[in-house]
């Protein structure tokens, strides 16, 4: 559990160059594509985490289901590289119209859109779908943007007064009906927001803004049998077995300009042993199949050379690219209110040792210089002031900052160097992490004289524990990817008190006030270029304060059989372009 699997963010100019470096310029989907056949996906997972559109929240799931089954108001363009980050109209006729200073957003549904049973998709269906997000006890794991953004008051305990469509007790349904309205012809949906959201039409790319037919909603069980609005519908879906999609005959290509619908059938084989899954593809014994999981580290050398480029016949059926994630160690500023100590930790770390454990730079990724990835284009600028960074650790720099800490913050210094107290680091309890911990302990002792200790937390409940601000240690491992191509889903989420992932607990820091003001300003900035510059400056600010110890700009590898064409890395979702894959 290194990363929070949120959906993805994006690249602009840098993407193409990076893709080339990674050796993965792949066939284009246009031209040579053909219809028919069965595409098989292989995975070790026993089932999809969720198939219910409201509960989908990982880039891969969003990419897969939005390609084949679930339509929503807006979508990312089906295109390689930077163009993929453009928002295009999907169920709606356009990418939305805002008014009231970006606090009201309106979408009109296309003519001829329907569910798999042929019934027309109406505004009420979208409204009902969005309402399910509020039933947090049933519709779990999905993004909760609707709760945070829609203009619905909060109850005393902080939860929304609207509790979703399943309960009547103490449920203020009227508040929801006021926040989301449908036009008389049931074709136009209007969202009233509590604050200005300039890029709300990015939010609506989430499948939690998909239509759900009320009559067929079964609450939790809808996850097993969601109703399709896209080109394929479920014929069979069984955990630990398989999912079979067949053509949805009620889907009309004329109402859907963005989906291709190449194969006749799509099969997902669940629960394969990892080695078996890899071997089926490496051996090319299932030519029309693709792995949905990471390649086992032991199999990477079969596919890629030392530089990370696909070799031999894998040149046309493997990619090694940057994914949207940045890993880091969040500093609990409340417990480590000493900039010099934080810097000493950063410089004392044996990055090279940790990198080697994760398979080397060719597969693991490059050292991060902040929480914004170069793939983010506009929002990224190289962070300065980190010149003393050395891969194998820099004991001179570390000692310099430790000496400074001795006078600047003697209490924290005493704690950090006391063998009985030391600095506590939260890690998920896995074998790899235990090896990493050994490297941390060693390099901290050797390079900075810091005593480092570890809280190993059961992997499944890791985030639940460390996000409890009373339980968090001094440092916590984490990973994050932007929810869409804007650092508005990174900087405020990670470093403001109201954010969704505030593991730095930095609001007590004297530097916080100025930071928060600038962050709010950036959120409200209508000029995207200016906004991007502000995010880059805030990223620099975060690093100046060392609120996180940056980790890796991570990479991912994908492999597939020789029978498939049209595969490319769909940047906004950080996953292959499932909808463009065809059988050669």
């Amino acid at each position: 559990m290194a990363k929070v699997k949120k959906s993805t963010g994006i690249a602009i100019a840098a993407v193409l160059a990076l893709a080339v470096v990674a050796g993965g310029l792949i066939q284009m989907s246009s031209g040579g594509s053909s219809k028919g056949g069965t595409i098989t996906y292989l995975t070790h997972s026993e089932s999809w985490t969720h198939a219910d559109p409201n509960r989908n929240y990982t880039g891969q799931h969003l990419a897969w289901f939005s390609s084949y089954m679930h339509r929503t108001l807006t979508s990312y363009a089906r295109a390689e590289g930077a163009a993929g980050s453009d928002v295009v109209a999907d169920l709606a006729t356009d990418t939305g119209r805002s008014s009231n200073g970006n606090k009201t957003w309106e979408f009109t549904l296309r003519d001829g859109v329907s569910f798999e049973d042929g019934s027309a998709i109406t505004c009420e269906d979208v409204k009902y779908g969005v309402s399910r997000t509020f039933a947090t006890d049933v519709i779990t794991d999905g993004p909760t943007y609707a709760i945070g953004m829609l203009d619905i008051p909060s109850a005393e305990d902080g939860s929304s007064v609207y509790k979703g469509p399943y309960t009547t007790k103490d449920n203020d349904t009227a508040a929801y009906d006021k926040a989301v309205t449908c036009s008389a012809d049931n074709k136009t949906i209007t969202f009233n927001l509590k604050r200005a959201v300039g890029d709300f039409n990015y939010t609506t790319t989430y499948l939690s803004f998909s239509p759900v037919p009320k009559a067929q909603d079964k609450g939790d069980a809808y996850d097993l049998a969601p109703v399709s609005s896209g080109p394929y519908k479920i014929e069979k879906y069984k955990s630990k077995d398989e999912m079979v999609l067949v053509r949805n005959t009620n889907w009309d290509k004329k109402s859907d300009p963005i989906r291709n619908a190449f194969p006749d059938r799509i099969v997902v084989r669940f629960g394969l042993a990892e080695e078996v899954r890899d071997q089926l593809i490496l051996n090319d014994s299932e030519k029309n199949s693709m792995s949905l999981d990471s390649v086992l580290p032991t199999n990477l050398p079969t596919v890629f050379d030392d530089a990370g480029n696909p070799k031999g016949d894998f040149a046309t059926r493997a990619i090694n690219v940057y994914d949207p994630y940045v890993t880091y160690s969040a500093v609990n500023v409340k417990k480590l209110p000493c900039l010099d100590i934080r810097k000493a930790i950063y410089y004392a770390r044996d990055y090279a040792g940790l990198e080697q454990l994760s398979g080397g730079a060719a597969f693991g990724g490059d050292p991060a210089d902040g929480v914004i990835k170069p793939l983010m284009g506009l929002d990224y600028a190289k962070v300065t002031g980190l010149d003393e960074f050395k891969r194998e650790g820099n004991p001179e720099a570390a000692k310099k900052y430790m000496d400074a800490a001795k006078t600047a913050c003697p209490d924290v210094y005493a704690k950090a160097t006391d063998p009985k107290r030391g600095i506590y680091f939260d890690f998920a309890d896995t074998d790899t992490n235990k090896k990493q911990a050994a490297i941390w302990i060693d390099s901290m002792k050797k390079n900075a004289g810091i005593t480092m200790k570890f809280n190993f937390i059961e992997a499944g409940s890791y985030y639940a524990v460390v996000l409890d601000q009373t339980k968090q240690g001094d440092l916590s491992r984490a990973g994050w990817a932007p929810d869409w191509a804007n650092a508005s889903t990174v900087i405020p989420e990670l470093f403001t008190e109201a954010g969704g992932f505030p593991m730095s607990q930095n609001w007590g820091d004297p530097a916080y006030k100025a930071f928060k003001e600038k962050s709010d300003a950036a959120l409200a900035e209508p000029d995207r270029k200016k906004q991007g510059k502000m995010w880059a400056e805030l990223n620099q600010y975060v690093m100046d304060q060392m609120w996180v110890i940056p980790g890796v700009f991570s990479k991912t590898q994908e492999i597939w059989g020789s029978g498939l064409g049209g595969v490319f890395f769909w940047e906004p979702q950080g996953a292959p372009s499932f909808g463009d894959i065809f059988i050669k």
Partner: protein
Amino acid sequence: MFAYISRRLAVSFFILLAASFAVYVIFAFLPFDPAALTCGKNCNDPGIIEANRRRLGYDLPFFTQYFLFLKGLFFGRTFGEGAALINCPAPSLGYSFQQHACVTNLIGEALPVTFSLAIGAIVMWLALGIGLGILAARFRGRIVDRLSTIFVLIGTSLPTFLTGLLLLVFVVIRWGLIPFPSGNYTSFFENPFEWAQILFLPWLTLAFAYAALYTRFVRSSVIDTSNEDYIRTARAKGLSEGVILGKHTLRAALAPIATMAGLDFAGLLGGAILTESVFNLPGLGRLAISAVTKYDLPIIVATTLLAAFIVVMMNLIVDILYAYIDPRVRVA
């Protein structure tokens, strides 16, 4: 005999009750919060967690929760409300929010898979283990015996996941001797041929490991029994070697095998986790292990209880069977 079985059944019932209580206690005091887990991986909203705790009944006192569980077993249980209402009829073992199904149904689907795996494997390994064990004992010190020693050595030292993986990667993927199964499991009643085809390698994998143990055990048991006085008596009567081995030696030598096989069978029914994982069989072992990694409490409780139930029942069956084989332990 009837009184004996009734008494044993009554004791079994209390053992299971105690087991269910123990499992509940263990999970009640584990340092994790089931309500926080319902909130999703990134959820840190205390409002949502608290609301879910109330809605899912995790705020109720421990004994109330346990009582509701027991009540569900006999009268069924419902969860949620409105369109999201879920009804799990008796015997309800709860509802898994991670698998979106009543636990009883999940067990009902997984049990036949594990049973199929276990029954085929036990037939294979008993045939192989007993056959080879008898041959090795009969031709002690000769080539058959030597070969069986090698078999035992390999069989007992290779872990099943490795055997299984080797079989899959080479026999199926590399050499293509058997086609890669198109499905994960087919019911015997649906298509017995496909059922056997899918299960053949898993059976072989399990049988390989167990047959090795049984070969060793049968060999020494047959040799020990051959030295018994009553075998000498049988020979003194003028019986042929075939009758002596087949009737007199094996009856006594294989009696302990019944106990061993019964308990091994019970163990497998609890779930052959490694074999099921390698061969992607949706059985009880997989159900249990994925529930453990995801803290899916209702499934953990149910699979643990089921495993206890199987072991208790199998013990009873083995005892009855043993009494049938060995008149000395027969109860009046």
